[in-house]
């Protein structure tokens, strides 16, 4: 069945309670509510901080406990239908409130407001947050389908396509077998470009794609293009946004290798360290005054897609050295689910 481009797969989904960006947002909103509540409770503004501290005595333990429980039950919640998951989250929150309220009476000796009022506040805040995350998910969802389009637009310079076809044509008569292989690479590359690129893909596949791309470039550039892969410590099952590496290589070749008469080396280093996946790419670079805007566009595009997928947990940085250019992507090490 053909899926329309505007197909919106969003039927409501819980936020990822293990994502740092989501956690940060929850922390901010809940504390904001606590501050507002404190402001309403006090007679004079001078008492505001004191009242907030008092509220915090119950709010903060509840908040931290909630986040821990939600992160721990993330896997279970994810398997429930959206309404059931909502019900479960609200139930967890109310349950925790009852427990903590009782505990605060016996252990903290803090004068708390009546339990029903706390339950109401917790239920409202939880509901508000869930509505917020749902709306945010909906807002980002078109962005994700647009990411596919962007991926396509930012990808593959026409320059590369036509030069590659030209190179393949030169092989057709002399070495038909190499021409075959090159056309297969080209087909593979375009299949990847035209795929639905909304879902994360295993890094091993992205690396495969990059090798196909580099083989094609090597065909044209010969010895001028040297490639160094360091993938010994790469977890092949790590998930990355599709086409997050190939465009960077294209930049490296276009800006680092092609403008130079001398051979240059593009090095790619991929490794996992402490639950983070690092991708480091280096290419020779000569400050030549005229900067191409194409480079920035590709970087902005990848940065945006990293943000769509990983929020603040991923970052892309660039470093201009004496004669090298370095791009580093650090993102959460998300493992592919076993089928």
């Amino acid at each position, binding site marked *: 069945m053909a899926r329309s481009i505007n197909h919106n797969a969003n039927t409501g989904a819980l936020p990822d309670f293990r994502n740092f960006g989501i956690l940060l947002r929850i922390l901010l909103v809940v504390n904001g509510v606590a501050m507002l509540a404190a402001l309403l409770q006090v007679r004079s503004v001078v008492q505001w901080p004191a009242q907030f501290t008092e509220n915090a005595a119950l709010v903060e333990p509840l908040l931290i406990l909630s986040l821990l429980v939600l992160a721990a039950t993330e896997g279970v919640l994810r398997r429930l239908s959206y309404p059931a998951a909502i019900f479960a989250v609200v139930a967890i929150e109310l349950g925790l409130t009852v427990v903590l309220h009782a505990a605060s009476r016996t252990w903290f000796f803090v004068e708390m407001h009546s339990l029903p009022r706390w339950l109401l506040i917790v239920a409202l805040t939880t509901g508000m947050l869930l509505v917020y995350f749902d709306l945010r998910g909906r807002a980002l969802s078109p962005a994700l389908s647009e990411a596919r389009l962007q991926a396509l637009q930012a990808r593959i*310079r*026409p*320059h590369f*396509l*036509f*030069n590659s*076809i*030209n*190179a393949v*044509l*030169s*092989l057709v*008569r*002399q070495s038909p077998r190499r021409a075959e292989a090159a056309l297969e690479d080209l087909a593979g590359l375009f299949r990847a470009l035209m795929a639905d690129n909304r879902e994360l893909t295993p890094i091993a596949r992205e690396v495969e794609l990059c090798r196909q791309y580099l083989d094609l470039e090597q*065909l*044209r*550039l*010969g010895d001028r293009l040297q490639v160094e892969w360091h993938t010994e410590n790469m977890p092949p099952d790590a998930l990355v946004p599709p086409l997050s590496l190939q465009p960077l290589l294209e930049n490296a070749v276009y800006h680092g290798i*092609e*403008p*130079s*008469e001398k051979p240059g080396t593009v090095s790619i280093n991929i490794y996992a360290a402490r639950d983070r996946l690092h991708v480091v790419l280096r290419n020779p670079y000569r400050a*030549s*005054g*005229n900067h191409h805007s194409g480079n920035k566009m590709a970087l902005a595009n990848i940065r945006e897609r990293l943000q769509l997928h990983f929020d603040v947990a991923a970052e892309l940085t660039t470093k201009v050295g004496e004669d090298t250019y370095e791009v580093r992507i650090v993102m959460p090490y998300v493992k592919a689910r076993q089928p």
Partner: protein
Amino acid sequence: MSGPLRVLIVDDEAPARSRMRDLLADVSAVLPVEIAGEAANGREALRLAQSGEIDVVLLDVRMPGMDGIEVAQHLQKLELPPAVIFATAYDAYAIRAFDLHAVDYLLKPIRAARLQEALSRAVHNIAPAAALRDLQQAPRACLSAAERGKVHLIPVEEVLYLRAELKYVTVRTAAREHLIEESLTRLEEEFGEIFVRVHRNCLVARAAIRGFEREGGESGEGPWRVVLADLEERIPVSRRQQHLVRELAR
């Protein structure tokens, strides 16, 4: 024209040159052509163009070191400049400019029929110098001087100063002087980042400036002069440009 058309292939990518050879072989069935040489970069192309009689140069636009547009400009300094046909895979800017100036170009991948068409009218079609100047996007890598029918390339980074004479511009390097037929104003526009105007008739390489001294010794009140690396000669700084002494003497 007698004999086959003598063609020089210039492209930095080996497969592209090989493809051009195949195409020329196909074309030769209809239009007598002969491959006079192949070059992988601009300098090599110029060397070959001077040593042999070349009718047409098939010139890739995007090449490292010296791009095709610049090569074409240097080729024009030859006594009998060859016709030039540009080849490019994709370059929206260049294509618009080519069309604007009616400069012939081929789009890669090139078709044999299109190549034949371009070759058959190439001999009558020499790109105007003004068109090439317009096409030049980045500053050239070299200046070129015609000397006894030969083209002499002067890498821009070797130039110490450029001084306008009556009809020419003197290009001074540590080794010697050259005369080129260009306007100082246009050179200043093109190489504004590399040279600075110290006098109405003189551009000095910023990187070569070693200091400033006053005419008539340290204590003198005479006008300032520029001291350049590897050069005895001193270049006077005009009264209007005295402020440069403070800005550059650091």
